[in-house]
């Protein structure tokens, strides 16, 4: 905490050198774009891994490129499962919506020149970047990447290479990477909360903040409370592995005909610690998408967000409940049925705030003069995916049903729709909506719409059949089930899903091309191309270094003044004084 920034943390001069301007920048906008680019890189890595998983599942005896002409071993498949999940959850879903868009737009939307702690902000990005590098390096150490999936359950994650090729050095790398990531996430969360509480412009009361600022705030609170717990759990796991302690490894454990020299620990303890973090993590991933959706639906329906106050309450309710439901990931861990029932009731009660949000999104669109632009399509897509994925959560939240559905493809279908793809659609929507502001160019609308429809139909084609497979009883995390009698008839469905995945992944290349093409050749964006009301649209595209060009904005209005009777235009900016 240097005294130089203590004097005036919100003011710093525009740097001129390359390194300070683009690499170790203190500017929240540059850092936001760095996070966004990191997530973009990570999402293509994670997607590439899933493509290999789909190839293996559809054609178990096939030979694929980059495997030296050999078939993919089941262990390699598990390594792909682990790294796909880890990279997607941490480096995409946690990174882009909050670190990327949040960093770029939170200060601007509340009328600040920067985040509360610019140096910490830079550090949190670079710490996250190092975590990503360490995670990728896990592929290249002896034994390769870990094979215990993103939840890294002990005892197999705690005993070293005897539990599988990637459980040696690869698992160490995984834990170290996640530990570093936790530090970055904590620094980021602290910064977001302090910025929201203390850096708002005059007139920008909490209840005048755009929905996006509210979600970034609530997400940061979740992160601040959750990542410390994961860090602590990671340290215990690393000690079990390297120092020989027995926090998680039970006594008398025999692996590969060898007695493991630990005693008395509990693998269930890890599950509690992990899911105490893991469930809020789900909301860390999805809440920013909810905020972007609320924002975009209002802008393109030309109506205020329906029930703003209820939306804020619902979001806080989801955040709070998110900390009380971790046990629903552990119904089959041998927990008492009474405990399970408490977790179940709390889990199902999340349906209330979720329904409020869904109802209000539809209420926002109801009777509006809807403009079906690309960002709007993705936002509507988000609502669709959130409903589809959320409904199956009601099944899984009941212990009696979960006992059967646990660890089947039903779960895979559920969480991919509701937290994976819905959150990704939030990012698509955010990218489409804010691209003109970030880069000063409009994205190509035709390419965007083609990408939307292929992706939207594609993800349903991929994940809907998985619900059916799960109900049939197909377990997840197996590289090949074609030899199992009752699952063999499902092989054609695997092939269908893999084709759908290939087409959907192909469409993402179009998205990438659209970004690059639009940056170079896209038509110039005006200051406010969407005719929106929040502060980021009151400044040039892209914004100047200090955001408001020396001016300090004053806010006079709420964030959603659309279609007000008696006004000349159908929108009124937040910083436009009352008549």
């Amino acid at each position, binding site marked *: 905490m240097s005294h130089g920034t203590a004097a005036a943390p919100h003011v710093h001069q525009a740097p001129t050198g390359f390194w300070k301007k683009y690499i170790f920048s203190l500017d929240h906008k540059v850092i936001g774009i760095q996070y966004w680019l990191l997530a973009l890189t990570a999402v293509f890595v994670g997607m590439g891994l899933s493509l290999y998983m789909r190839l293996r599942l559809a054609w178990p005896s096939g030979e694929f490129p980059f495997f030296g002409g050999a078939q993919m071993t089941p262990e390699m498949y598990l390594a792909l499962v682990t790294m796909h999940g880890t990279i997607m959850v941490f480096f995409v879903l946690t990174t882009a919506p909050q670190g990327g868009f949040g960093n770029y737009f939170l200060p601007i939307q509340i009328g600040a020149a920067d985040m509360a702690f610019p140096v910490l902000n830079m550090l949190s990005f670079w710490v996250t970047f190092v975590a990503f590098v360490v995670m990728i390096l896990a592929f290249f150490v002896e034994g390769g990447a870990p094979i215990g999936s993103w939840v890294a359950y002990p005892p197999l994650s705690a005993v070293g290479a005897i539990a599988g090729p990637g459980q040696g050095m690869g698992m160490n790398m995984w834990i170290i990477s996640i530990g570093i990531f936790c530090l970055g996430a904590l620094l980021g969360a602290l910064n977001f909360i302090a910025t929201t509480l203390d850096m708002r412009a005059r007139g920008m009361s909490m209840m005048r903040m755009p929905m996006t600022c509210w979600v970034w705030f609530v997400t940061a609170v979740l992160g601040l409370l959750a990542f*410390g717990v994961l860090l602590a759990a990671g340290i215990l796991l690393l*000690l079990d592995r390297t120092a*020989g302690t027995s926090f998680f490894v039970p006594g008398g454990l025999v692996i590969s005909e060898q007695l493991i020299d630990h005693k*008395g620990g509990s693998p269930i303890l890890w599950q*509690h610690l992990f899911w105490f973090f893991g469930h809020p993590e789900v909301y860390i991933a999805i809440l920013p998408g909810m905020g972007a959706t609320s924002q975009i639906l209002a802008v393109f329906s030309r109506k205020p967000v329906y029930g703003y106050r209820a939306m804020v309450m619902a979001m806080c309710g989801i955040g709070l409940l998110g900390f009380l439901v971790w046990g629903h990931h552990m119904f089959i861990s041998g927990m008492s049925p009474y405990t399970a029932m408490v977790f179940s009731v709390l889990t199902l009660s999340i349906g209330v705030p979720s329904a409020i949000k869904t109802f209000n999104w539809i209420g926002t669109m109801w009777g509006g003069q809807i403009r079906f632009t690309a960002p709007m399509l993705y936002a509507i897509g988000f609502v669709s995916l959130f409903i589809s994925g959320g409904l199956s959560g009601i099944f899984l939240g009941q212990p009696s049903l979960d006992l059967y559905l646990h660890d089947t493809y039903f779960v895979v279908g559920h969480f991919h729709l509701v937290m994976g793809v819905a959150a990704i659609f939030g990012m698509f929507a955010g990218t489409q909506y804010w691209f003109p502001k970030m880069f000063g160019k409009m994205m190509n609308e035709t390419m965007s719409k083609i990408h939307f429809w292929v992706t939207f139909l594609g993800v349903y084609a991929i994940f809907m059949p998985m619900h059916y497979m799960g109900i049939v009883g197909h377990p997840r995390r197996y590289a090949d089930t074609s030899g199992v009698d009752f699952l063999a008839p499902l092989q054609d469905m695997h092939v269908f899903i893999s084709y759908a995945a290939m087409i959907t992944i192909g469409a993402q290349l179009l998205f990438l091309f659209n970004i690059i093409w639009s940056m170079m050749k896209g038509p110039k964006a005006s200051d406010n191309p969407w005719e929106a009301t929040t502060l980021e649209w009151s400044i040039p595209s892209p914004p100047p270094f200090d955001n408001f060009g020396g001016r300090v904005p*004053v806010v006079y209005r709420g964030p959603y003044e659309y279609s007000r009777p008696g006004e000349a235009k159908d929108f009124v900016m937040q910083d436009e004084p009352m008549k």
Partner: protein
Amino acid sequence: MPPSMVDEFAHGNGDRLPPGTARRVYHTGMWLALIAISMFFIAFTSAYIVRSGLGDDWQALSLPPLLWLNTLILLASSYTLDATRRALLGGQREACNRWLMATVILGAGFLFGQYRVWQDLAAAGIFLITNPSSSFFYLLTASHALHLLGGLAALGYISIEALRFRLGPAKRTLVEVTAIYWHFMDGLWIYIMLLLWLWR
């Protein structure tokens, strides 16, 4: 706030952020950091309580007596740091520097004392992996020591500024947030002691 009030507020006092924002964000930031640190130790605590109730391998660790002396030293350092802060506010530079030096010495003394505790335990054959109770003892004391080391580094920086007589009122915020952190580490240590002492 009604719009007319906003207007009045806006045109009243120039167009910068209200004065004191910097001070406020540093205080907010410190409290948030303390919440995050609390969650970290709460996670260890829950693991401690659960693990102590599992199996039959838990052997209660008798706390080395030196810990009580260390506790007194740390409590004294909180007192001297508060005296530092009060002397700084009162403009008594020399008194401020004296109290500050005392705090640094006491803080370093606590860490050295903890090191001696670990040495004594090791000499008695009690290591990290000897028993889950000793695992948690080393884990909790080392985690606390690491956090305290951060506080000591901040105090070291403040001392250098103080000895050069550069610790003016502009540095007040730095001293304040460091003091908040230090007192919290003091409280955290009392908590850890009670946990290790009462939940054996």
